[in-house]
């Protein structure tokens, strides 16, 4: 069984940066890793330095293609739809060293497609079982967690900026998870781009909401230049603050601590 890590939080807080660095770290230490981009805008691959040849080759795109084929009755009666879908999902996978990447993309269809979603869940569950870790970069709206495309999550990281508004949003995300009763192991708060220490007021706010503050991340001076060049985050120097804290995150959540390898390979 693979370990699933979901990264959530409001827009622009650093979800993609942290997901990419965590996925890269785990891929180096204990491959293979599946990195899932839950943002319809699909940008995690860039942070990971991976190519995406076909922008429509996302889960959303494949789902839509399947729905279209069903509506148009284009499946031959003698073909197995699940088998067709399996192949398309594998085609959508971007395969790299120690790490594969899958984009959720967008799905705008109006129809109700329980059957298609069920088949999709079946292949995704099976696929996920082939990895040591699955890292999911969620979009701000938490759609995949609320739609239960993501089911069991072992570690949920809620990323916040160092503002009261940010923390309030993190509390809301936490409530959403509790209400949906999605199976979540550990839930932690990460405050990103914090200058100095957590203020007493913010500390109270966090404690009052029952959130566990795992780590804080300072402003990383190496991010802006990298961003200007458009280089992947995997090029951050090893002593870069962001990178160092991600190692901390992995250590503190026990992600790297002697996890037995159950790989099938």
């Amino acid at each position: 069984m693979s370990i699933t890590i979901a990264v959530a939080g409001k827009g622009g807080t650093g979800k993609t940066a942290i997901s990419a660095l965590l996925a890269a770290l785990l891929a180096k230490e204990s491959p293979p890793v599946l990195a899932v981009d839950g943002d319809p805008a699909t940008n995690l691959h860039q942070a990971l330095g991976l190519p995406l040849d076909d922008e429509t080759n996302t889960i959303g795109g494949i789902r839509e293609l399947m729905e279209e084929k069903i509506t148009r009755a284009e499946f031959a009666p003698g073909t197995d739809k699940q088998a067709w879908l399996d192949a398309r999902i594998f085609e959508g996978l971007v395969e790299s060293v120690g790490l594969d990447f899958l984009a959720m993309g967008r799905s705008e269809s109006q129809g109700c497609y329980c059957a298609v979603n069920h088949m999709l869940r079946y292949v995704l569950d099976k696929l996920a079982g082939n990895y040591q870790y699955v890292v999911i970069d969620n979009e701000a709206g938490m759609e995949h967690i609320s739609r239960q495309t993501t089911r069991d999550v072992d570690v949920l990281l809620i990323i916040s900026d160092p503002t009261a508004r940010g923390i309030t949003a993190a509390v809301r995300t936490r409530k959403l998870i509790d209400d949906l009763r999605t199976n979540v192991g550990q839930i932690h708060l990460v405050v990103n781009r914090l200058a100095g220490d957590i203020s007493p007021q913010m500390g109270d706010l966090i404690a009052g909401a029952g959130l566990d503050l795992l780590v804080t991340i300072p402003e990383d001076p190496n991010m802006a230049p990298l961003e200007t060049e458009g280089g992947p985050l995997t090029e951050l120097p090893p002593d870069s603050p962001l990178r160092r804290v991600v190692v901390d995150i992995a250590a503190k959540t026990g992600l790297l601590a002697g996890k037995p390898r159950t790989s099938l390979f």
Partner: protein
Amino acid sequence: MSEFHVDMGPQYEGEAIRRENVQVEFGGPKIPHKFELVTLKGLDEVEHEKIEVIGPDIKDIEEGASSPLAILIDVAGEELEKDMEPVFERRIHMYSNYIEGFWHVAQRDDIWIRLDKAAFKKGLNSLREIGEILIFLFTSELDIIEKISVTFITDGEKVKELLPNALTVYEARDARARDLGDEDVDEFYGCILCQAFAPTHICFITPDRMANCGAISWFDGRAAYKLDPEGPVFAVPKGELLDAARGEYAGVNAVAQEKSLGSVEEVYLYSSFGRPHTSCGCFQSICFYIPEVDAFGIVYRDFIGESVIGLPFSKMAGETSGGRQVEGSCGMGLEYLRSPKFFQADGGLRRVVWMPKDIKERYKDAIPEDLLDKIATEEDVKNTDELTEFLERVGHPWVKGEVEIPD
């Protein structure tokens, strides 16, 4: 099995082989020509356990490369029937995935196969051995196969040359599948996926009745049930045929009662009246009764605007859905229009008087020729008054009293 270089068994089924571990890949998105085909032959035409490899073998192919592939399996046996070919063909998928370090996806001319480097290092370096394992699994699991031979073709030109023949075979099988009727099978399938939204809804999926959402045909139901017998798609033994015209089966009734916790007691598969099939919320289309003309209209999800009764699809769907049995308003998969049993108890297609132009175009080969221009669309009429007048004018068989209702 000590005689083979790798292990085998169902425990390897979920195993995927990642790009960086690929020794060789057959078929898949990079290869235009690939297929697998099982052919039933006479006992004297099959040389038992013969394995042939035409073209480069695994050990001759560069590490990590992709190659064309055709897998041709010939089987013979006194009790074998032509209809078993596709069933055996799906077994290639199943048994291939039983092999440690060997991965098989999809079907027919869409196949995609990978061999793991680790399995190659263990000594699995020839398709011949894959053939031996497949023959071993086929013959040990399927007693009725008396003779079996396997040919692998990796020569791209040869695969390309043989592909059209395979496509013809697939087409012929699809044609036979389309002809399959409810009377030809012993088992239907049921689906309760939509009970999350409509707790009393069960889709009954039969050769003559596609699921409401259009996503699960009888064949898909069979495949889903085999894949996951504990899952939301299950087998429904037909039981006694209680009413041939309405399509009432004892087995269907029993399952309906059980899975709806008693709220649905009887189901007519081929009638919109009395005890019609329930509608969840996922249906592709609705067959609705139009009292003014005592006949039926069809409307579907993508239809924009108001249907002939002055309501949009969304409104009509709301009145149909929820897992209830609503007389004269049935959610259905569009492919049910092709069924010879399509609401046969109520007069079938000959009692349909209105449908969107798009649907009429798409299903024109399923509609009797003399009926085609007598069914009104949104372009012909805007409301039921115009519809009444239209039907009179074109002489629709239902209005003329030419349609017989079976009893």
